[in-house]
């Protein structure tokens, strides 16, 4: 708790920034359309749209990836709970995004110029929005569904970090608010052509906008929840092992697969040069992340720790997400490798300071998300560090404090943590009255 308050304090002190920056940008209040609606052929439009739909599929399957990874890295007695959370967040995320998120994130009118806009409740499309008149790369529906799949991701990231101890109801409430308001508002600052965009902040597919946003939520949740029972005993770290490495591996590979849509789709067209470059940088960062984590864990822990290697690939992927189309393949190897090394130390470090994150979500999504956003400023000749730092700080201040407040209110009111007894027995029986592996003997002292 004490730690949480310190971190909160730091952010609160930085809060004034939020009021200074807009001043600088006040002159800027018309919305620019990012994608030029150039004249393209029906064929090209169809290809672009088809690719965007395939990318949507790929982002969709990331949700199975998250579910599998998180379930695999936690204990068998909490598996149903985790899978339940992932399935329901996806649903809640898409529904609320349809209702308000999409409107908040891609505003047609700004209420507070560059800071808060609105495009109306719900989704709807007529004639022209289903043709290239809407956009050269996709129809209105494609636009929505691709964005909706992204939105659900942010909340899912939190799920892994708070696993094995959070109350289901409280988590669902948090996620709903986070996806409905926090994620799209921050997103509008950049992708909705808000003030961060004007400032020159660059985040291609969401190292910050998606991953860090999720990561900040995760950090707030973990601080307020506290560690799992038995994780830190008499000052010693007692690892709580994940129950299924194959499940975790399936999760990571599906995430990796989905990332080709996450990054590849963020090109917003099927442009051969750009999409293929993004595929190459994405792959190279991921494999470099694997190697980085492998070597780091082999050297530091004396054993090639497989769970670290899995996290390493994700670390590489998160870190290249911000600059997948502006960082060269060679640099993408460096960005990914550093992310892979970073994630090993980060996991160990968070454990040391008793931030108990069962799946390493904070290390992967927050730490590497920040690193990836900075990397754009470092490795892309067209971008500089300044705006990147501001974008990162803005996310930290806005998202962490929002998440912290939401969780705090929930903690004070309905509570966010299950009872000690339920945590012992497992949330599957406690919250859902069922077991994930009926019939299997699981050694239950864990």
């Amino acid at each position: 708790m004490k730690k949480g308050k310190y971190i909160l304090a730091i952010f609160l002190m930085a809060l004034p920034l939020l009021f200074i920056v807009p001043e600088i940008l006040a002159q800027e209040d018309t919305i620019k359309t990012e994608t030029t609606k150039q004249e393209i052929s029906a064929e090209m439009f169809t290809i672009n749209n088809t690719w965007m739909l395939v990318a949507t599929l790929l982002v969709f399957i990331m949700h199975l990836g998250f579910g599998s990874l998180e379930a695999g890295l936690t204990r068998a007695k909490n598996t149903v709970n985790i899978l339940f959370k992932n399935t329901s967040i996806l649903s809640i995320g898409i529904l609320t995004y349809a209702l308000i998120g999409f409107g908040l994130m891609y505003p047609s009118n700004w209420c507070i110029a560059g800071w808060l806009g609105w495009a109306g409740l719900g989704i709807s499309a007529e004639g022209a929005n289903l043709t290239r008149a809407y956009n050269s790369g996709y129809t209105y529906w494609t636009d929505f569904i691709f964005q909706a799949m992204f939105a659900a991701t942010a909340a899912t990231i939190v799920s892994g970090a708070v696993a094995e101890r959070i109350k289901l109801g409280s988590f669902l409430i948090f996620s709903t608010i986070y996806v409905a308001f926090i994620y799209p508002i921050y997103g509008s600052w950049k992708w909705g052509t808000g003030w961060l965009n004007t400032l020159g902040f660059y985040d291609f597919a969401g190292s910050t906008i998606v991953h860090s946003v999720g990561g900040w939520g995760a950090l707030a949740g973990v601080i307020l929840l506290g560690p799992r029972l038995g994780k830190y005993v008499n000052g010693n770290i007692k690892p709580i092992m994940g129950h299924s490495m194959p499940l975790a591996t399936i999760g990571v590979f599906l995430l990796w697969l989905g990332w080709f849509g996450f990054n590849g789709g963020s090109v917003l067209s099927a442009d051969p040069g750009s999409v293929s470059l993004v595929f190459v940088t994405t792959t190279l960062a991921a494999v470099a992340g694997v190697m980085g984590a492998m070597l780091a864990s082999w050297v530091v822990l004396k054993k090639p720790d497989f769970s670290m290697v899995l996290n390493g690939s994700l670390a590489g992927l998160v870190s290249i997400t911000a600059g997948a189309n502006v960082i060269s393949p060679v640099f993408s190897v460096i960005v990914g490798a550093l992310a892979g090394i970073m994630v090993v130390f980060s996991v160990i470090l968070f454990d040391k300071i008793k931030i108990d994150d069962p799946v390493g979500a904070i290390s992967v999504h927050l730490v590497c998300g920040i690193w990836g956003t900075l990397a754009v400023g470092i490795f892309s000749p067209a971008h500089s560090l300044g705006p990147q730092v501001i974008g990162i700080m803005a996310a930290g201040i806005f998202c962490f404090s929002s998440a912290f407040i939401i969780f705090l209110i929930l903690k004070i009111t309905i509570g966010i943590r299950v009872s000690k007894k339920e945590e012992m027995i497992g949330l599957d029986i406690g919250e859902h009255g069922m077991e994930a592996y009926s019939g299997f003997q699981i050694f239950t002292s864990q």
Partner: protein
Amino acid sequence: MKLITAYIQPQRLIEVKQAFYERGIYKMSVTNALGCGQQKGYHETYRGADVEVNLLKKVRIDIAVNEEFVDPTVDAVIEATRTGNIGDGKIFITELVECIRIRTGERGTKAIG
């Protein structure tokens, strides 16, 4: 020599090991078991139908000890597992006729520890 068998709540195993350690009892064997006792079990539902679960997960600990260790062992178990709630568990003691350490072939009270 006696064989002490205790059925305890799974989550108490760590405390039992600790309590043994403090009394110089280093050897034991542990098995998973399902128990049916005064503890009532709980209800699961699966696809709309009720599942009555009255076999609850327990951990069984077997400790073979020489006579002078019987009481310390029993005390250790009780100390580590008693909460006063139904389901705390039970301890059974049987007579041990012989004990052999395979590695050395030692027998009896020497082999047990």
